């Protein structure tokens, strides 16, 4: 079991080329709030925090957590994801800063 897991860890990378998606954080809102990405591919999220305050990008579904410093860009890699919806939110303003990554089967998923 353990060695199967170890094998799976290094054989499950499917992405040949990494797609990039830019998300802007402005007035405590992620724009766009819905990001469509191709399933089974690694995607690079570039998050541009244009607010004057820090924020923390947080997603339990994606297992991602990153502090977004004010007026700075940050990069997070996600995937390869199975088809489905993955919620993310700003931990410091969870009521407004919300979004969802939707992994779709089609290869032409765009933001």
């Amino acid at each position, binding site marked *: 079991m*353990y060695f199967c*897991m*170890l094998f*799976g*860890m*290094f054989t*499950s*990378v499917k*992405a040949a080329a*990494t797609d990039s998606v830019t998300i802007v954080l402005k007035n405590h809102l992620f724009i766009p709030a819905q990001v469509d990405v191709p399933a089974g591919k*690694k995607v*690079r999220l570039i998050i541009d925090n244009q607010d004057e*305050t*820090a*924020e*923390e990008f947080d997603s*339990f*579904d994606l*297992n*991602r*957590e*990153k*502090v977004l*410093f*004010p007026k*700075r*860009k*940050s*990069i*997070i*890699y*996600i*995937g*390869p994801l*199975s088809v489905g919806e993955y919620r993310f939110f700003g*931990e*410091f*303003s*969870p*009521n407004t800063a919300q979004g969802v990554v939707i992994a779709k089967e089609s290869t032409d998923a765009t933001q």
Partner: protein
Amino acid sequence: MLLNSVIISINQFLPLALLWVLLHHSDFGQASEKLPFLPTLLLCALACAVFLGFADTISQWFDYKGLEIFKILLLLGIYGCVVAVLCFGGRVYKQIAIVLASVMYLSHFVMYVSSYWQLDTKQGIVIGTILGLGICLSFCTLLFFTLAWFKAHRAWAVVLALLSAHSASKVANAVDLAAQIDLLPSSETVFDLRFLLDEYGITGRLLKALLGYEATPSYANLVAFTSALILSAGVIIWRMRLIEQGSVKGVEHDQ
């Protein structure tokens, strides 16, 4: 703002407080070496202040990957210190682990407070933080006395298993951070337990802080957690055998 402050203070204070409680009870087969509260608190505050002064700059290093690399080192440092405590005991490793954990977690809380501290939000932040700290304190007090009860009944394995799982979760967390910046290959999710227990609720958050519970772990996360747990267990078994041999020799010497 009040509810948000409660959640953030729980998220950031709980892992640190849990580590403190677990390390407090980690001495086995030797005289207990307690952490000095005030000096450790001062060291934590100083380390946090230094980190916060440079965090913004560090985040831009290595093509915006600097903060993750720094946090990976912190998490591995915490795990290394816990293994050192299990190996050799000693107050200094405990103190380093707590200081590293405070830089890892408390700095987030300070960032939140410094970003949102305004006239109209002050009250919500203060009350929310007090409530969050109260919840952390209640849970940790409960854990403290539960672990004390286990120790009193010579159930060391339970205490050490909890400490091992807690520290192994730091390694799993470090692997997630490495995947987040493409330092390690990303791997697919092994299983999805969100229908059973997600990490948004209080139980999920508590289990995540205590044992590193993940509802949707990746292969890499699971492998890292299991490997770190096996290493800790190996160290504990080795140490226990050493203690047993020592006590047998002691008995023979007395005879």
